[in-house]
């Protein structure tokens, strides 16, 4: 197990390296001059040249990248060009906000997906099952940003039950309950798609497991359903369910971006969008790496859990 984990973790490094190189190149391909933006339209050419020099933007690309890499490896993510804030200090709170939204959405998706999926599997071909299939298909095809707007229209504008946007009340920090009120709509918006996928996966995995010969035998022997599920079905159905759940977490981490935009949720997505449009390279790099790293680590965690459940997979 240790070797498996070590091997996988070692594989993270080249991936992260590749991600940072791609972002670096992409940002340099981008048109638009940081100096003009920072100094305003009236700045002299001399001032712009000096600023580019001060920011090291006049150096050859590989050198710029090398310097960035060296600093980053030592844990220094630099200073945001646009806001003059320490990048780590800027990015970390946003990351936590995104995490709040992500985890809440994931929990919601799991609660809905596991319970509805299990229920539908046990009542195959029932009305409930058919409705579930239809609803999950619909939910899986719904554009999340659009769904968010529809929910805002219904619950925030028409009914006024919930706030329209933001993470806390505009007047200040309203505490956990306040965050919770603000969390409901974005979490539902983000969770719906993943919930649909998890539901379908749970449903089909459980049914496949129920169909296996030894389960049929056990059932024929008159084993009670609760015991049957616990002993024979759930464990067998679990690996694909865990895989799909983990993948959803990865998706939620990055893809909540659109939800964050719709609800003005102060997360990484909005920060990334702002810093790309401001050509704020240090922030873009730190944000992307953080999201990619989380994504890769979640994927590894999923693999590890699956290996723990079924050691045969280690060879695969």
């Amino acid at each position, binding site marked *: 197990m240790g070797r498996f984990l070590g091997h996988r973790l070692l594989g993270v490094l080249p991936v992260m390296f590749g991600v940072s190189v791609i972002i670096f190149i992409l940002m340099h391909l981008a048109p638009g001059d940081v100096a003009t933006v920072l*100094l305003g339209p009236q700045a002299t050419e001399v001032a712009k040249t000096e600023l580019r020099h001060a920011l090291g933007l006049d150096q050859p690309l590989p050198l710029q990248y090398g310097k960035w890499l060296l600093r980053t490896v030592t844990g220094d993510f630099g200073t945001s060009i646009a806001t003059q804030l320490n990048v780590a200090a800027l990015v970390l709170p946003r990351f936590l906000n995104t995490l709040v939204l992500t985890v809440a959405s994931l929990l919601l998706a799991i609660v809905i997906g596991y319970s509805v999926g299990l229920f539908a599997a046990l009542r195959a071909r029932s009305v409930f099952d058919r409705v579930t299939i239809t609803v999950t298909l619909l939910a899986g095809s719904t554009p999340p940003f659009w769904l968010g707007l529809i929910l805002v229209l219904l619950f925030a504008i028409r009914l006024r039950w919930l706030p329209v*946007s933001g993470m806390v009340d505009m007047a200040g920090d309203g505490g956990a309950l306040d965050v*919770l009120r603000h969390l409901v709509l974005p979490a539902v918006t983000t969770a719906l798609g993943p919930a649909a996928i998890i539901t379908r996966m749970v449903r089909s995995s459980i049914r496949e497991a129920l169909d296996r010969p030894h389960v049929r035998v056990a059932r024929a022997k008159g084993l009670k359903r609760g015991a049957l599920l616990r002993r024979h079905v759930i464990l067998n159905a679990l690996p694909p369910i865990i895989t799909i759940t983990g993948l959803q977490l990865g998706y939620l981490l990055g893809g909540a971006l659109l939800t964050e935009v719709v609800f003005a949720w102060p997360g990484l997505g909005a920060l990334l969008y702002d810093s790309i449009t401001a050509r704020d390279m240090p922030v873009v790099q730190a944000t992307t790496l953080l999201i990619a790293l989380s994504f890769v680590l979640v994927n590894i965690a999923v693999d590890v859990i699956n290996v723990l459940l079924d050691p045969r997979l280690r060879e695969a």
Partner: protein
Amino acid sequence: MALRAGLLAASALAIAATLPVSARAAGTLIWGMPAETDILDPHATGGWSTYQVTYQIFEGLAKEDLTKADVASPPLVPGLATSWDISPDGTVYTFKLRPGVKFHDGTAFDAAAVKFNFERFWDESSPNFYKKAKAFVIAYTKWIKAVEIVDPMTVKVTLKAANYQWLRQGLQSYGQPLMVSPEAVKKYGNDGIALHPIGTGPFRFVQRDQGVKTVIERNPDYWGTPAKLDRIIIRPLQDPATRVNALENGEVQIISTPPWDEIQRLVDAGFKLSTSPNVPYINFIHLNFKNPAIADIRVRKAINMAIDREGIAKEIYRSTGRAEYGMLSPGTDAYDPKFASYKYDPDGAKKLLAEAGFANGLKLTFELAQYGTGEIVETWIQRDLKKVGIDVELKKYEWITYMGKWAGGMGPDVAMNTIGWGMSTPAWIDIVSRCDSAPPGGINSGWYCNKEVDKLLDAAILERDTAKMKDIYQKANRLIMDDAAFVPTIDDLQPIVLSPKVKGFVNPPEDWFDLSIVSLD
């Protein structure tokens, strides 16, 4: 814990229904702004959204009085200087400083503090010099020859040449020479002022959560009339729909730049609309003299005649905009509301185009920035031009890219680009229209050049008499429009929508406001 959170989320609908919308401290005003302020160091920043905040925290030697709405331009009044004296040749300014003023950190304001600030944004030989500040405050500092302390409460600034717009030029966006606490600069460093903005103004800085909010509170030791509000929370709400929703749900009390189509509904719902007839900027199109088609004056005139400005003002701006026919901004002493140039005349435009040899149509490229408003004004213009036979391709760039393209000047394949800009000094016209303002010397993005205009503009800043100055600028304006060098389009009347609880708000002829006179019921 995680599970509990999930359960709570499920029942939050019920909780939410029973809670009041929000509970907030008395005297706290929350303002939904369309953009985030960049950094709060007034010497080293550009945007108007920033000065809407820094105006409350910092003051200059002279300041613009923003407590009056019904004036042509904001009166220039004593700020941290109680008076100033200008030598007969116009080159020496002697400032008498206001006694008894303290910065928010307790540092005394005196001639040494003023000198320190000039060193920071102007004097390259000083250890206090800050390169970035000079790059921004350049419109002001490029005139300075020397700064001397006469006595602890008197400072003398000598200019390289006379310029009677100089004080006003220092109070525009893109770098203002406002007074920053020298102690704060020493303590936090030049870069640190952005995070520790310490001035002398009626409000002092409390807290900043980048992208989420900026909080300022009343300065109890203010030298002038203290602010009425206890606290102001500035919330960047980029999405217009979010701003409207927040206002209607009582979460904010003021929003700027409301969506035009929502204004009437908000007014009907009991909110107050405030507009300013004299905003110091206009929206206009640079026409590119390097483009072969545009080089023909008949084409430039035709474009000017083809656009239904009144229609745009009425139908898109919903009467919070005004058709504009000249290039001088309202909000300056030189503006003439009666100035007329090319009236809407699509048939005349067609005729001119035919004369220019484009009877069978013309294809032009129009570059613009992506504002997030759906670019409805530009698409309207595109339709108007189509009607006279000009096919316009809109090329939209996100802001940063666009800034570079606009400030760098247009290439010959581009016909026009657009921006909304201006200042409360008519000397702004220099930056976009002088021959030597061609990029990179300035932002004459369309490479317009008329020596006669330059001569008039040279004379204008040397004119101390306001009436005569106005006359010269009007002549320049006439020449520019005779050349059809630009297409002035629409003034935005700076609509602000307020909760009826907000009292005393004044929408002055400036891009920012004095919030010390505002109160809440």
